[in-house]
């Protein structure tokens, strides 16, 4: 009988680079930075690590575990490359956690990295032939913002929001994240914006404008995990894993006509399992803070409903009320989120956990949330009709 991962694994060290357009840094430079900070934080050296998982979605530097092991000069230990779209970072940590929980290793490293800004154009690398199979023909000439923008048109239509009302709600989400970003020295974007600016920004993919879209960034984040019972040997304030859950689309969203393209079904499914594993019965009451996957403002809006925080179709009311602001009941994206911390694909899942880790330890500086108990990260890879959701719940 499966018992779940609750309280079996603890994070004893983390590192995260500043995210942004690191024109002078390679993926290697970023990984060295995050892993060194992580090991220093844990008080460990490379020789202490038993196994490693590295996540990278567009491994321009090569496949397999070699790019990490040869870079860090890891001592002939198992290193595995992990990829699951934008949920890659969460997957790397999940694998490392399960490995120590299983008792196979004592200390495991998870690291995520992405060097997005070597393509020569804005946005993520073109999907062209990357989606495999027949996508060369039967995938629209699409980009990520467009495939999420479709969710905005259908959400607005379903809940009777005019484009003006809808965009205003989305703008408030962006304004909140921009504010949080100004408080984070590692964030990619550190500038306040106004609702009007967000609403009148150039359209990237109708109805999403520039400020509805997260930054495309370079960056890396890393974590070291051990079994919970050993955690206090390394540090007094380890952060414990309460749940890890992944849900992946079954095809029915994209091909069967029941799904409404106004929510993300995988989030609903993954959240239900995660709450059960973590023993949460009323997420709106029990969760202290969140980092959700705000690749686009519409994604964040629907996540509030899909995660069971806001009632279906009524996330707008919570947004209007400031429920998710830094001083709200459940602050979301305290570090600026994908929106302002930035989104180096393979690193983002670990970056979210990094913020929860720092907040739970009370080390989040000017953006410190008062006395948090339970933090949730929600990391999404793919597009609304076909995606990977990784949810983690962390606590003291």
């Amino acid at each position, binding site marked *: 009988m499966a018992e779940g991962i609750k309280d079996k694994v603890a994070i004893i060290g983390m590192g995260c680079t500043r995210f942004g357009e690191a024109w002078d840094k390679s993926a290697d430079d970023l990984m060295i930075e995050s892993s060194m900070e992580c090991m220093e934080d844990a008080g460990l050296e490379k020789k202490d690590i038993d196994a490693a998982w590295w996540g990278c979605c567009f491994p321009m530097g090569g496949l397999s575990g070699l790019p990490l092991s040869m870079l860090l000069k890891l001592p002939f230990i198992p290193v595995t490359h992990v990829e699951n779209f934008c949920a890659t970072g969460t997957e790397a940590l999940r694998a490392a956690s399960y490995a120590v929980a299983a008792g196979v290793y004592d200390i495991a490293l998870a690291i995520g990295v992405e060097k997005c800004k070597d*393509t*020569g*154009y*804005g*946005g993520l*690398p*073109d999907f*062209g*032939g*990357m989606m495999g*199979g*027949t996508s*060369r*023909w*039967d*995938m*629209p*000439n*699409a*980009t990520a*913002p*467009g*495939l999420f*923008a*479709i*969710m*905005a*048109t*259908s959400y*607005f*239509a379903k809940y009777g929001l005019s484009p003006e009302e809808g965009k205003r709600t989305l703008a408030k989400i962006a304004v909140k994240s921009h504010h949080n970003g100004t408080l984070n020295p590692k964030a990619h974007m550190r500038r306040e914006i106004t609702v009007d600016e967000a609403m009148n920004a*150039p*359209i*990237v*993919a*109708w*109805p*999403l404008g520039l400020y509805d879209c997260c930054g495309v960034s370079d960056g890396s984040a890393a974590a070291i995990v051990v079994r919970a019972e050993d955690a206090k040997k390394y540090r007094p304030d380890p952060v414990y894993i309460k749940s890890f859950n992944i849900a992946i689309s*079954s*095809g*029915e969203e*994209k*091909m*069967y*006509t029941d799904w*409404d*393209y*106004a929510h993300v079904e995988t989030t609903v499914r993954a959240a239900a399992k995660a709450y059960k594993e973590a023993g949460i019965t009323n997420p709106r009451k029990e969760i202290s803070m969140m980092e959700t996957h705000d690749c686009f403002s519409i994604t964040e809006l629907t996540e509030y409903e899909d995660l069971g925080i806001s009632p279906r179709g009524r996330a707008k009311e919570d947004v209007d009320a400031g429920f998710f602001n830094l001083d709200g009941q459940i602050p979301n994206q305290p570090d600026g989120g994908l929106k302002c911390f930035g989104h180096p694909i393979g690193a983002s899942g670990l970056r979210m956990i990094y913020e929860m880790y720092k907040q739970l330890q009370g080390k989040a500086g000017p953006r410190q949330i008062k006395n948090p108990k339970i933090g949730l990260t929600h990391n999404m890879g793919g597009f609304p*009709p076909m995606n990977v959701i990784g949810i983690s719940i962390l606590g003291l």
Partner: protein
Amino acid sequence: MVGITSYGAYIPWYRLNRNIIYSAMGWLNPATLTPGEKAVANYDEDSITMAVAAAIDCLNGLDRGKIDGLYFATTTSPYRERQNAGIIAAALDLRPDIRTSDFSDSIKAGTGALLSAYDAVKAGSVKSVIVCASDCRLGKPGSAQEEIHGDGAAALLFGDSGVIASLEGAYSLSHDFMDHWRAAEDRFDRSWEDRWIRDVGYNEFTSEAISGLLKKYSLNTKDFAKVVYPCLYTRAHADIGRKLGFERGQLQEHMFATVGNTGAAYPSMMLVAALEDAKPGDKILVASYGNGADAVFFQVTQEIEKARERRGIKKHLASKKDLASYERFIASREVLTIETGGRGEETAATSASTLWRHRRAIEALVGSRCKRCGTRQYPPQRICVKPDCGAIDEMEAYRFSDKQGHIIGYTGDSLAFSINPPQMYAMVDFEGGGRSWFDLSDCDLDSLKVGMPVEMSFRRKYHDAARGVYGYFWKAMPIRA
């Protein structure tokens, strides 16, 4: 009795007023101004896609499984090796055990293909052949051709039962008359002096072919309800008819000022327009022009009334959108090199073996329908996508290309590269079930709404110039006409 059993046509949505061309390029050749507008293929259309559209119109409500051949006439086929007729047949989901051929290299190829289709049925080789004629010719910026050449297609189904217009006779003329030419490595037509073309070629060959036909079959101009021949020059077009002894009312309207000279498709498109108005008993004479001429005549039967449900020429003419920019026109035809940005230059290789394995899914938009629960799904699945079914390998082929659907969510994407930005695409739910996402074309972002009905159109998906590949797929568009 052998002849036409159905007809269809296609005229692209965009029209370009010749004044717009003249305003942009008239400085070069001030004498080029031609009145009217012309039909312009969208950036994702070419002779193949227009032929598919005309054929779909022609096959409206007919059993595609009964077609034994497809002949394609054009001078602007995207491929010189990879039979274009084969691509069209694949898009139409015709059976593979059919005869296909490309007729090319002359604007009289449309009537040549039509005569060969008639021969094939008459000779008993096949029961039913569809003939598609389509052209999308370029003129150099500032040339008269740039104003005159229009884009369009026609399709005629030939058979020996349910004939709406029987082919009664033909007379051909072949001359290596080099009035205009385009070498294999050239993109644009070149031509000799207009006055010479008009006096020595166009007037002479058209008249000679028609007179030859009349003489051969002992017919009189008065015997015909309509006479159809392409228009290269409006005044000369009228003169030819007059000199042959036709009344003005007998001359089929030439669409020169609405569509333009559509090359190999021109006579067939005019014939379709004539058939739209034809009454049982009418005789219609059709002559092509180009390196000689073919003259053919038809006798319309009672069956004509059964083949009225076509968009044909009339409805396509009425459904149009002004293209207000000359530069958009030349960009869409790849005459102007435009900034695509790095993203626009990203072109993944086309896997021919992948395309071959999935040819029905990609080229004919055939998905699957679960035999157990009836759920339609695209792309074809082996395991049923309906959550409470999940039947394994109980699928049958199901064609989506002829189904309508509606938009459940859409966007206009300015990050994706498009020659016609923003790149619009949508998730589409098909009537009867089935869902997928598709690029949208022939529409404006402003006009889109969640819930609006769409139909499918075979379009050029990409052009990989470095590898000489034109990729095709289906797009969704608001229902025309």
